[in-house]
Each structure stands twice: as structure tokens, then as C-alpha cells.
């Protein structure tokens, strides 16, 4: 018994699921469900179909290069059974799995990081540009009168009329 990978979506095929297709050139195509099988029959390229692992890996959405992948390799030479080795292997699988999972999560988090920065930049720009919708420019705000002239006591001629003073305000 072996867990195979679906040719189209690269998901795991458990025993008892899916369909295998053997072509005349003896190449075997395994599919996990009829969705993948039908897509294959439609001659769709999995590298162009968004939800497949092939697409995700090709477009850098998922982690591709990692040392954990080298530990899981299809070995064609049978090894003589050794209980200790088996024990160690089982423990190791769990650890490797966890590490790989964490690393994949990291990869995806890394992908999302620039978005936050970008958002912040855009927000700042928006703030800068559209502040006029909620706040009047500093020049005419009531908190700060437009012409802020420090009160300098000037000895002014007494000919200035009351109206002129009023007009200035």
C-alpha cells in the first residue's frame, strides 16, 4: 500500500479512492476524485488552474525548496527490517512533519508582510491628500486665526477709525 499523489491537484490519494488511468505509453495518471479526472480529460493544464498545488508552487504561493523534502524520498531498494530503525523513523516523521508545517506557515506569513507596509503607506497618503474633507486647511481654521499677528503694541496715530479696525477683522 502506498499513498500516491493526484496528478492534477497533488493531493494525497488514500487506498480505495480515485481512478488510475494508464496511457498507451505506459504512463500512469492517478486522480483523487472525479473533479481532477474530468479536468484532465478536458486537457486543462494544472499549472494554470488556480486551486492546484502545481499552480501554487509555480507561482511561489507555497514553499518549494526545503531540506525537509529531501528526507521524504521514494526509495526503490528494500531495506531489511529493523525495529529500532522503524521506531526512530516513526518518531522522526512526526517531528519532520511539524517542522515542515511551521516552515510552510512562515513562508505564507512572509508573503503577507509587505501588504501591511503598503497599507500603511497608502493610508498615510490618503490622510495627507484627503484631510481637506474633514479639516479645513490650517490657514483658515478657527483655532488658529488666519493672520496670526503677535500683539505688538504700536503707537498708532489716533486718526484710525473704528470702522477700519472692524474691517480688518
Amino acid at each position, binding site marked *: *500500500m*502506498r*499513498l500516491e499523489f493526484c496528478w492534477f491537484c497533488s493531493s*494525497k490519494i488514500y487506498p480505495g479512492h480515485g481512478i488510475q488511468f494508464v496511457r498507451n505509453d505506459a504512463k500512469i495518471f492517478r486522480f483523487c476524485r472525479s473533479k481532477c479526472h474530468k479536468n484532465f480529460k478536458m486537457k486543462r493544464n494544472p499549472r494554470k488552474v488556480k486551486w492546484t498545488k502545481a499552480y501554487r508552487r509555480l507561482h511561489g504561493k507555497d514553499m518549494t525548496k526545503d*531540506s*525537509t523534502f529531501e*528526507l*521524504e*524520498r*521514494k*526509495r526503490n531498494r528494500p*531495506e*531489511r*527490517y*529493523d*525495529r529500532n*530503525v*522503524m521506531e*526512530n*523513523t*516513526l*518518531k*522522526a*516523521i*512526526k*517531528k*519532520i*512533519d511539524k*517542522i515542515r508545517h*511551521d516552515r510552510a506557515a512562515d513562508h505564507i506569513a512572509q508573503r503577507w*508582510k509587505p501588504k501591511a*507596509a503598503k497599507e*500603511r*503607506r497608502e*493610508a*498615510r497618503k*490618503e*490622510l495627507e491628500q*484627503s*484631510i481637506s*474633507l*474633514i*479639516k*479645513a486647511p490650517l490657514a*483658515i*481654521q*478657527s*483655532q488658529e486665526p488666519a493672520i496670526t499677528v503677535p500683539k505688538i503694541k504700536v503707537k498708532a496715530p489716533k486718526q484710525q477709525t473704528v470702522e477700519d479696525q472692524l474691517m480688518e477683522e
Partner: protein
Amino acid sequence: MAQYDFKKITVVPSGNHLIDIVLSRTQRQTPTVIHKGNAISRVRQFYMRKVKFTETNFTDKLSKTIEDFPRVEDIHPFYDDLLHVLYNKDHYKLALGQLNTARNLIKRIREDYVKLLKYGDSLYRCKSLKLAALGRMCTVTKRIGPSLAYLEHVRQHMARLPSINTGAPTILICGCPNVGKSSFLNKITRADVEVQPYAFTTKSLFVGHTDYKYLRYQVIDTPGLLDRPLEDRNIIEMCSVTALVNLHAAILFFLDLSGSCGYNISQQAALFHSIKMMFRNNPVLIVCNKTDLQTLEGLSGEDLKLVMEMKSAALKTIPGQGGEAANDKDVLLTMSTITDEGVMAVKNAACQRLLDQRSERKMKSKKMPTVLNRFHVAMPKPRDQKERPVCIPQAVLEARAEEAAHEDRKTEKDIENENGGAGVYSASLRKHYILADDDWKLDILPEFLDGHNVYDFIDPDILQRVEELEREETAVEEDGGDFEMEDEDFTAEAEKDLQEIRKRKKLLIQKHRIKKSTAESRPTVPRKFDKDRKFTTERMGRQLSSLGIDPSRAIERARSRSVSRKGRKRERSDGGDGEDEMEIDGGLDNKKKLRLRSRSRSVLPQRPLGEVVPGEGFKDSAQKMKAVTMARNATKKRNKDARRGEADRVIPTLRPKHLFSGKRSIGKTDRR
């Protein structure tokens, strides 16, 4: 010696049938037409031909029959005797003799009448002569009718006789009825003789063939013999007696130890002694059958003595003529046809005895020395006294010893049979695994774990590599946390502002969308004609203050510039203005006031909706309201159809596709 084939004898026609055949032949194969006007020689010739032809036919047929049947003088005495037993030689000979006589008679008739015909003078005379000739021939044939019938009967029976090759090595099985002779035949050959519990199941001789040392042996099964004097024997018994006497074969005398055949041992012994004369120089074996019911050892003393007597008699019957038993053992054998025990041994012993006899006879024949002289077996002379024994390597000897020791070891098949047979037990292939520790042989091997194939991960130094991995991970962790915050977060105030901005933008967008969607149906009314009185200075003031600007000056200005301020006539109707009456006299001249007050467009004063204006033609407020409602409903309908007014009869798309095309999923498309 030839193999007789009685099947090839032609069918013997009965008397009448023979006559019919011959006469019809004559009629067909000779010319039939003659006239009395023809020349007399021709007439004579015609009739002579007929007579001769008939005679030829008769003679031919009779001769054929006579020749086909075997002549008793010429055949093997076995067949001679057999024929005599079955058909009575005298009768047989007589019949054949009669046929011969008839043939001669017919010849005589033909000679006579042909002589007479030579001198026939008229057609009539010739015709009568021919008639007489043919008639006499037919009478003769009629007279031998019974003989012909008898011969036909004999022929049919003979054809069914088993074809026994008198020259081939033969094994003859004899004994009392029901001892198991036919079952033995069935066992060693492919013959399928009927085996039944009653006596005289086998009524004639049966032949089977078997192989031994690349030679083919005939095995003849005989009917059972009873202990009677020869004269009293019936035909069936005579068959077996004939075979016994005439055939040269190894004789297997069958003995039933258990007595289940119906005859006890003394009776069987008596039979043996009475027929042992017939054995002559044939090798004899005494076979004790049915050992599953009674073994030789279990016999009582008397019976055993009788058996031993028989054995010694069997040994004696070979007075140096060859075929002597190699050892005592070969003469007396035991077997059981039911359990198959000893059957093959018996057959092999019989065949071997025959072989020995043959080779001895060959050795004693006159031709032997000439053959012997032709070949010479060379024995190499030893050149020195050195012993050169057989050389077997030690390993081989050891292996052989081990083999011998292991011979009664338990095989897998035995284990399988013990544990329930083929369908129930399945052999454990793991037993013979070569592992570092034998405890591991019965381990269950996991194949999947957490969605991974375990076999893909197996590696002797996998732990080491996993450790490396973990170290890497921890290193990265300590390293990491490089979340560089390039920019600082916003302050709370800035956040709030941002939210405000976004909210405001949303509102604007919403309003714009509403405006756009209702643009067709609602006329865009410029602000100065706003019915709802939304655009007031208070509103403006509120908006400006929310922006953070002091609105007072703006309000002042707006109000000062409003038309009502600039000296509008007070005489206008009372429903007109709702504007502020506050006067701000900022020192403007009258001209300015007038200019400010004048409007480019006249505006009707507002009235309450239901108010009846005298010139309109309504009798009361209720009627006016009804009219208003009707107008409103009509407008609604028009607005719904996106018509600008009553007179708008534009059809934007004359032939919309969805009304003029398409098939129905069910039904007809006769009308649209």
C-alpha cells in the same frame, strides 16, 4: 503372428437378398432390348451374356464370403478353439462347405445352359433357356439360405470379439467368479469393465493394454471358473478355458482370502488344482486379493496350508522351460484393489516374469550364438593393484546423511492439512525471515503515518538528520523576529481622522450613486429652487464648524447677499418668503439694493398643496387633492417607464434581443 481382424468380413446377405441383388444387377448391367427380328446369333449372344453375367455375380459373392471367413485349419489354435466354443466348428465348417457346393453348382448350371443356348434356334427358345438357367441358380441360392443366415450371425458375433494379439506378451487373469479379476483389470489398464457384486458379470474375454519397461502387454480378463469337469462347462467358462489353454501368457490365479466371493479357500484351491494342467509352461502367479478384508497372515492354519500347497504347485509348473521365478516371493503376492495396495507390484511381477521367460528363450534359441558373436563386452584389465574406490565428496555424503535424517520432517503441506486444509489455513511466510533479532518476525509494519508513507522516510541515520533540522529551526527562531517596522503606527488621532475621511468618502460616493441612478427620472433642480429648504445658512454653518472653521463671517456674507435682504418689495404674497428678515445694513446704496434684489428668473410663491385657488376649477379641497393624487400616479407610471413627460414616446430599443430570440427549454416558440 498376425493379428486377426474379424471386423473386415463383408456382410453376408441372406438368400433372397442375394438373389435380388444379383438379378437386379443383371437387369441393369446387361442390354435389355432384343427383338425377334434380330439375327439369331445376336439373340443367342444376348441371352448367353445374361446367363454368364448372373453366374459370375453369384460366384463372386459366394467366393468372397468363403474367403473372408477364417479357415479353421489355418488359424491360431486359440481362435480355433474359441470359434469352436462359440460357434461349433462343425456347423461352421458345414455352412462354409454348403456355400462352396452352391458355387460349384451354379457354375455347372451356367456351363450347361450356355451349351444349350449355343444352339437355340428362336428368340423364344433362347429366352426360355435363359429363364430356366437363372431360375435354377436362384433355387440353389434359396436352398443355402439358412447357411447364409447362420454365417451372418457368426460374422456379427466375431466382429465383436476382442482383438487379441496372440504374439504379444500377455497376462491372463483367472479365478473363481467375483474374486476381483475385472477390478484388477480396470486398475492397471484403461479398460472399463463392468464390476458388479453378482457372479458372472464378465461373460466373455476382455482385453486391456498396459505398459512395463517400454513394452506393451495385453491383459486378458476371463469370466469366472467354477470347479466342474470339462464336459459340464458352459460356453462362457469354455471361453476362459480356451484362453488358458491356447494362449501363451503369464497366468495370474486370483484368490479371495476373505471368501466374500462366495467360495471359501478350499474350494478355490480345488479349482486351482483342477486347472493347473492347463498352465503347462506358462509362468504362474498366485495373487491373493481383498487383503483389506482378510490378510494372508490372518488366515487360519488350514487355509494357509492350502495356499502354500498352491504356491508349491505353481513353482513346480515351470520345469526348466524358462520363466522360473527369480525368487520364491514372486509366486505368491497379496494385494487389494480397493485400497490400491500391491496392485502395481503384482503387475510388475507378472510382466517381469514374462520378460525373463522371453529373454531366456531367446538365449536358448539357435540364433543366439550368432548374435552373441557379433558383440563383445570389453572389460578393462587392471594395470596395477591400486585400489580405486568410488569417490564421493564429504559434503555430498553429509548432505545425504542429513537428507536421510530429515526425511520424516514435517512439511508445510502436513501443517496445512493439520490446520484445516487449503482453504482454511494460509502458510505464514514470515517464519523464515532473516532478521537481526528473531522477535521482530511477527511485527506489524505500519505503512502510513499522518498521511505520509513510512517507507519513504526509512533511513538508518534519520535521527541524526532530524536533530540537525531541529538545530536549524531553533537557530532561525532566535535569529528571527525581524519584523522591521519601517514606519511607526499612526497616532490615535491620526487613526480617527483616517476613519472620518473614509466615512466621508463613502457618504459622498453613496450620494453620487443615488444621484446617478435617479438622474433620468428626477430633474436636476439647481440649488436655488430647492423645495425642501435644505440649503440653509445654519446648515452651512454646521458644516463649516465641523471642518473647524469659524462660520460666522460666512453666514453673515451669505445672508447679506440673499435677495430678500436687498430690498425686495414687501407687497409680494404672504406665502412667499421664509427667509430671514434680519437686516444688516452695511451701508449700501439704494441702487445696489435694487440690483441685488432683481432676479433673472421669476419664482412662483409657494402655497399649501390642498389650497383651492379660485381660477383652477376645483370645487373644494378634497377634489383638488384627488386631482393631485391622480396627477402623481400618472407621473409615477411615466417615471417608471423612464419617460420624460406625457409626450415622450421614445422607445429606446426597438427590438430588444431578449424578446426576439432564444429557444424555449420546454414548449414551442410560436409567438413572442
